[in-house]
C-alpha cells in the first residue's frame, strides 16, 4: 500500500529507511537468515557505502532497499513510500521510475549497442525511441564515451563498460542509485574514475547513492558508511568516526 506519493519529497525524508527487516532463505535445516532485524537509513544527497565480509547480508540489504527482493518482517520505505504490502506490479513500476541499478558484472546486453543499452530505462518508462536514444547518446558523451555510441559493449574496456552501466542507471534521473560492487572488476585508476562519477551523481539534490562494496579504496568517497556483520548492522560511520574507520582499514 502506498502511504505517501513520491511527488514532492521533504529534504529531511530519508532516501531509504529500513526498520527491523528479517529475510531468510530456504526452509528447515537449509534455512539461512540473511537479515536479522536490520535497521538501515540512507539520506538524500549522500553516497552511502555498505561494507562487510562475504555473507554478512549486504547484497540482501541492497536487494530489499531496491525492491527487488521480498522480505519476511519489518518495514521498508523509499523516499517516503512504504513498500510493505505494495502489489508487486506497483513495486516494479516504482523501481522503473525511481531506481537506477549498477551491477558488478555490468549486465549490459551484448547484442545491443551502447545507445540501445542506455536507452532501456527510458523506453521502459514510455519515452519514444528517438528521444530515448538521443538522451542516451548525450549522456554517453558526457561520460566520456563520445564516438563509441554505436559500439557493442564487448568492444569496450571494463571501465568503459561500467561507465555505460552508470549511464544506463542515470539516464532516467532516478532518485535512488543502487550499485553492487561497481569497482571490483576494475583496476585502481578506473575504479577511482567510476567512484568520482558516482560521488558526483550523489550530489544531485534529492538523490541518494547506495553502494555495496568490498573495496577499501572506495571508502574515502563515502558520506556515510554502514558496516554489516552476520545479518545485522555492526556500525554506522560518518564524519570523524568514518575517517577513523578508513584509517583503521587501510
Amino acid at each position, binding site marked *: 500500500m502506498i502511504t505517501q506519493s513520491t511527488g514532492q519529497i521533504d529534504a529531511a525524508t530519508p532516501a531509504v529507511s529500513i526498520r527491523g527487516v528479517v529475510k531468510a532463505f530456504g526452509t528447515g535445516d537449509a534455512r539461512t537468515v540473511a537479515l536479522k532485524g536490520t535497521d538501515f537509513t540512507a539520506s538524500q544527497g549522500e553516497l552511502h557505502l555498505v561494507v562487510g565480509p562475504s555473507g554478512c547480508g549486504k547484497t540482501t540489504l541492497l536487494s530489499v532497499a531496491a525492491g527487488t527482493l521480498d522480505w519476511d518482517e519489518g518495514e521498508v520505505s523509499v523516499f517516503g513510500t512504504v513498500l510493505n504490502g505494495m502489489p508487486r506490479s506497483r513495486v516494479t513500476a516504482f523501481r522503473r521510475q525511481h531506481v537506477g541499478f549498477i551491477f558488478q558484472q555490468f549486465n549490459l546486453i551484448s*547484442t545491443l549497442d551502447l545507445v540501445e543499452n542506455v536507452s532501456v530505462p527510458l523506453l521502459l518508462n514510455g519515452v519514444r525511441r528517438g528521444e530515448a536514444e538521443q538522451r542516451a547518446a548525450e549522456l554517453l558523451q558526457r561520460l566520456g564515451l563520445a564516438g563509441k555510441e554505436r559500439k557493442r559493449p564487448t568492444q569496450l574496456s571494463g571501465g568503459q563498460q561500467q561507465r555505460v552501466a552508470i549511464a544506463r542507471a542515470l539516464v532516467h534521473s532516478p532518485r535512488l542509485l543502487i550499485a553492487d560492487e561497481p569497482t571490483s572488476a576494475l583496476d585502481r585508476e578506473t575504479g577511482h574514475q567510476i567512484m568520482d562519477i558516482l560521488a558526483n551523481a550523489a550530489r544531485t539534490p534529492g538523490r541518494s547513492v547506495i553502494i555495496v562494496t568490498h573495496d577499501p579504496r572506495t571508502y574515502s568517497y563515502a558520506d556515510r558508511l554502514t558496516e554489516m556483520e552476520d545479518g545485522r548492522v555492526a556500525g554506522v560511520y560518518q564524519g570523524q568516526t568514518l575517517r577513523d574507520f578508513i584509517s583503521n582499514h587501510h
Partner: protein
Amino acid sequence: MFHLALRMLLGDRAKYIMLVGGLTFSSLLMTQQNGVFQGLLSWTTSHMRNMRASIWVVDSRVEQVNETKALRDTDVNRVRSVDGVDFAMPLFQGVIKARATDGSEKLIQLIGIHSGTLFGRPAKVIEGDIEQLRIASTVVIDELAAERLGKVRDKNEAPRPLRVGDTFEINDREARVVGICRTERHFFGYPYAFTSYDQALQFAPRQRKMLSMILAEPKPGLTAAEVARAIRAETGLAAYTVPEFERSTIAWVWRNTGIPASFMTTIILGFIVGVAIAGQTFYSFVLENLRNLGALKAMGASNGLLSAMLLFQALTVGLVGYGMGLGLTAAFGFAVADNGQPPFLLQPESILRSLVAILIISSLAALLGIRKVARLEPAIVFRG
C-alpha cells in the same frame, strides 16, 4: 522495447539460424507432406472432374467413385422418371487390358459415355474431334494413354506417343484414336480411354450387368442435392452430388487405406521436430540471456512486457521459418508440376493449417522461456 527484442534475437546469430532452420524444416515437412497427401486425395476424386456431372447414381452399396457395382440397364429409365431429373445417361467404367503398339499389355480406364449426348465427355480435348466417338471402334485417349500405349516408330523417326489416326487394341479389338484429351490423373494411375457407351460394351468382357453408373442433371431451378435426395427416395439407389461423392470417397480412403495414417505420421513428426528444435533452442537462448532478462526485470520491466518480448521473438523466428518452409514447398510444387508426380496440391487451408501449427510451435517454445522468466527473481542480478 520490441525492436530491442528483435536486436537481441538477431544478435545471437547461431541460435537465430538454428531456430529458423528448425522451423523451416518443420514447416517444409508439414506443408509439403500435406500437399502431397492432398494431391493424392484429389486423384481419388478425379473421375468426377474428368466426367463432370451434377449427380452420380450408383448401386446403394457403393461408397466411393472408383468403386463399381453394376446396375441393371432399366435403372437408367427409373432415374429418368424421377421428378426433377432433367436427363440421366448411362456410364460404363472399367479397367481393361489394352495392347500397346510395341506389343506390351497395359491396363487402361475405359469410360463409356452416352453416344447421343456424349454426356460425361472429358473437359479438354486437345487434339482431334470427340464427336467422332459416334463412329464404331473409336476412342479419345488422354495424354498419359498416348504416352503409355504409344512409342510408335515411324520410318526414320524417334519413337513417339499415339496420335489421332493411330490404332491399338483394347481387349483384342482394334481401337482407332480420334482425339487426345487432357485429364486429371486417376488415383490408380490408369490412363483414360473414352468411347461411346455401346462401344465400351463391345470392348469390355461380357458380363450379365454392364451399367456402372448413371450420370444425371437436375432440372433448371432445382439443386443437385434436392434431386439426388429424390432419386435415393424413389429408386433405392445411391445418388450423390459432387461434393457428397467427394466427401464419401475421401472418407472411404481414410477408413480403408493406410495412406492418411502414413502422411499424418510424417506431418505429426514434422510438428514434433519443430517443437523439439525450436523449444530446446529457444529455451537455451532464454537461459543464456537470463541475467540480461533479470537486469531488465530489476530495472522495472514487468513480467507481461518480458513475456510479450519473448513471444515476439519466438513468433518472429516462427514466421521467418514458416515463410522459408512455404517457399521451399512451393519450389517443390513447381518442380513436380510438369511431371504430375508425386501428386501435389497446395490449398489455402493447408497453408493456413501449417501457419497455425508453426505459430503453436513458436508459442510453445516461448512458453518455456516465459515460465522461466516469470519465476525469475530480479535480485538474481546481484548474485555473483
